[in-house]
């Protein structure tokens, strides 16, 4: 493959697309698929065949369009977006391509949900068919790889990433350029790149969507990273619970190999990278990098102390670069447009955009990509459309079991790594769950502690025993049988587990408790002192009923 050949594929694909005047794109990412969007696609294709319109109307499956709660979503070449489409609407939809749009099914796109977004990682999501490499190439796909291989040295690539200010999107926010240069400088007989797609935070589905909607972008990011650090083998560690993402990744790898964009001697430059998929097996702790490495090596996924960091001694004892899906997905556009371009977006310390999975008690749920620095209020009330059923906003939870619950008084805080950490939460991988007055914050803290307790790998005592004890106390509080002494002990345990656990899972497990103690202490006190659950979630309901 030469730059000219790549250009040729892109040109042919664009021409082929231009030759077909009408197009109907059906979202076939997991969200809409669970509303039977595949049946909609099938019926549309059948109807086009029956009408003999195959030469002027194309039906294609595309990735996530974002507004999952209104699925199945369908967009047309006439520029309209339709929601809640059923197979029975197929005929009417095709008719509308030459007539008025269907008012009944229209989904307004001039709303803040669509207008406030800035798409970089998701630029192709909902636009291209994720199972065709040609469509990715037609959107300037693999152009960045080609430029890197033919015009740039590894040092120049790393300098570009450093200039962009990109930070790890898995949650911790470590500067990506710095990580790459550490691995590049490390000495070993072989180096590895790993893509962490073990998206385990409950309430987070950004990585799954990227893999399902635009898998080649992740491969291209990994290829560029491997070139920059000098790796020749790569692994994608993906949750077994994401069968569709796995299938599309496999297809993408096969297609890239066939075109010579992946494998041995890529584009005749002597650079080689082989990528293999490894399936996770449902252990949350495997999102931690040393546990993930152990799992790829075929062992139980238990973390080990760092240093040595994987950059020095990682997979099979060799220097290893581990980045998250979204981090890799940011790489091709950064190389294409320059690090300085990326650094213009966002805030001083948090550059670029972030993809969030917005869910919970909010009107618009789905996937959004926004520039860093947007406020929580804009996220919840403008993009999210506010709280349904006239209820009151209570908290927004970020960072999953490692994050915290942020109350109304933090709504005007910008979304960036530092400010979220100051407020007692973390950026995390991008799950954002909105809660209203019907959620009890003690119950929510107990929910997350149950998660951490179950997912603790058991290797270190503070996490294994500490999470169990904290869960026991939280259960006592929600059962209305706790005392002031228990509250004090809970705080002490939080401090102990946070500071003495081996890995990130234990160190951050107290966050949901600490943040709710900080902002919602009154709710804890109501449970302890008055045996009352203000939200009416905990068993106080039964007690109250009995006492009346």
């Amino acid at each position, binding site marked *: 493959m030469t730059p000219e050949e790549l250009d040729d594929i892109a040109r042919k694909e664009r021409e082929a697309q231009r030759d077909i005047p009408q197009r109907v794109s059906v979202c076939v990412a997991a969200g809409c698929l669970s509303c039977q969007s595949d049946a909609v696609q099938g019926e549309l294709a059948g109807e086009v065949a029956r009408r003999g319109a195959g030469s002027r109307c194309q039906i294609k499956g595309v990735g996530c369009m974002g507004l999952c709660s209104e699925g199945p979503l369908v967009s047309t070449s006439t520029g309209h977006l339709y929601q809640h489409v059923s197979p029975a609407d197929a005929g009417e939809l095709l008719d509308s391509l030459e007539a008025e749009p269907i008012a009944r099914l229209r989904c307004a796109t001039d709303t803040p949900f669509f207008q406030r977004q800035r798409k970089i990682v998701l630029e192709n999501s909902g636009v291209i068919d994720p199972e065709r490499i040609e469509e990715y190439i037609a959107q300037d796909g693999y152009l960045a790889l080609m430029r890197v291989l033919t015009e740039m040295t590894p040092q120049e690539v790393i300098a570009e990433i450093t200039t962009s200010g990109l930070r790890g999107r898995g949650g911790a926010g470590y500067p990506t350029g710095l990580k790459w240069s550490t691995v590049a400088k490390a000495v070993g007989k072989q180096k590895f790149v790993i893509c962490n797609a073990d998206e385990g935070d409950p309430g987070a589905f950004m990585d799954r969507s990227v893999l399902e909607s635009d898998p080649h972008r992740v491969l291209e990011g990994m290829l560029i990273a491997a070139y920059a650090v000098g790796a020749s083998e790569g692994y994608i560690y993906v949750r077994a619970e994401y069968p569709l993402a796995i299938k599309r990744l496999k297809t993408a790898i096969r297609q890239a190999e066939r075109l010579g964009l992946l494998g041995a001697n890529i584009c005749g430059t002597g650079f080689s990278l082989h990528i293999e998929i490894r399936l996770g*097996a449902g252990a949350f702790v495997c999102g931690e990098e040393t546990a993930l490495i152990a799992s790829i090596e075929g062992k139980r996924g238990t973390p080990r102390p760092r240093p040595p960091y994987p950059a020095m001694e990682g997979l099979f004892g060799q220097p290893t670069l581990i980045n998250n899906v979204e981090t890799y997905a940011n790489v091709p556009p950064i190389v294409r447009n320059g690090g300085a371009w990326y650094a213009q977006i966002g805030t001083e310390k948090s550059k670029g955009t972030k993809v969030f999975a917005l869910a919970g008690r909010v009107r618009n749920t789905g996937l959004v990509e926004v520039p860093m620095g947007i406020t929580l209020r804009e996220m919840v009330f403008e993009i999210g459309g506010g709280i349904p059923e006239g209820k009151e906003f209570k908290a927004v939870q970020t960072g999953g079991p490692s994050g915290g619950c942020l109350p109304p008084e933090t709504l005007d805080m910008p979304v960036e790594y530092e400010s979220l950490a100051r407020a007692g939460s973390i950026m995390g991988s991008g799950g954002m769950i909105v809660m209203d007055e019907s959620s009890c914050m003690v119950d929510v803290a107990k929910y997350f502690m149950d998660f951490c307790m179950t997912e603790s790998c058991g290797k270190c005592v503070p996490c294994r025993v500490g999470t169990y004890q904290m869960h026991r106390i939280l259960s006592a509080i929600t059962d209305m049988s706790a005392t002031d002494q228990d509250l004090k002990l809970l705080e002490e345990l939080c401090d102990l587990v946070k500071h003495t656990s081996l890995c990130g899972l234990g160190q951050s497990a107290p966050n949901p408790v600490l943040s709710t103690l900080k902002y919602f202490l009154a709710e804890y006190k109501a449970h302890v002192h008055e045996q009352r659950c203000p939200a009416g979630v905990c068993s106080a309901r039964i007690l109250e009923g009995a006492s009346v």
Partner: protein
Amino acid sequence: MAIYGARPAPPSTDKRWKVVDATMRKTGGSSRGLIETLHTVQEAFGFLDEEALRYVALSLHVPFSRVYGVATFYHFFTLKPGGRHTCVICLGTACYIKGAQHLLDAMRESLHIAPGETTADGEISLLTARCLGSCGLAPAVVYDQEVAGKVDTGSLHRHIEKWAHHDS
């Protein structure tokens, strides 16, 4: 103790063991391929029984204790056969906030089993998931591999009853 050079015979003449053998060959026939191999066994047979674990241990020259350790460490692996139908209730944060616990309680009550168990007649297994990533459609339930969104106790009961009727 592994006997080098001697390849153990599969537990039976079942053709599915050929698929398992192929995975072991592809991953280098060493302990590195343990998790991949267990995935293949579970995909082929539905669960991991002791016979399968022993065969994998012998073939990959790994102590049985390590194979057992790995198989029980990861939630995805199951050592018991599932029911004819499976009902997986997602307990991810978004689903929890939208009442997934009520769905689970309703199922426990009507099926008289705890999560992870199968009804006595071997018909329905009740499982929970940490997060399906279908948070936009919370609460979500997976009926026999098919994800359904915005589930309430009514639609849940109807689906379970449909299974019972189709079988009778």
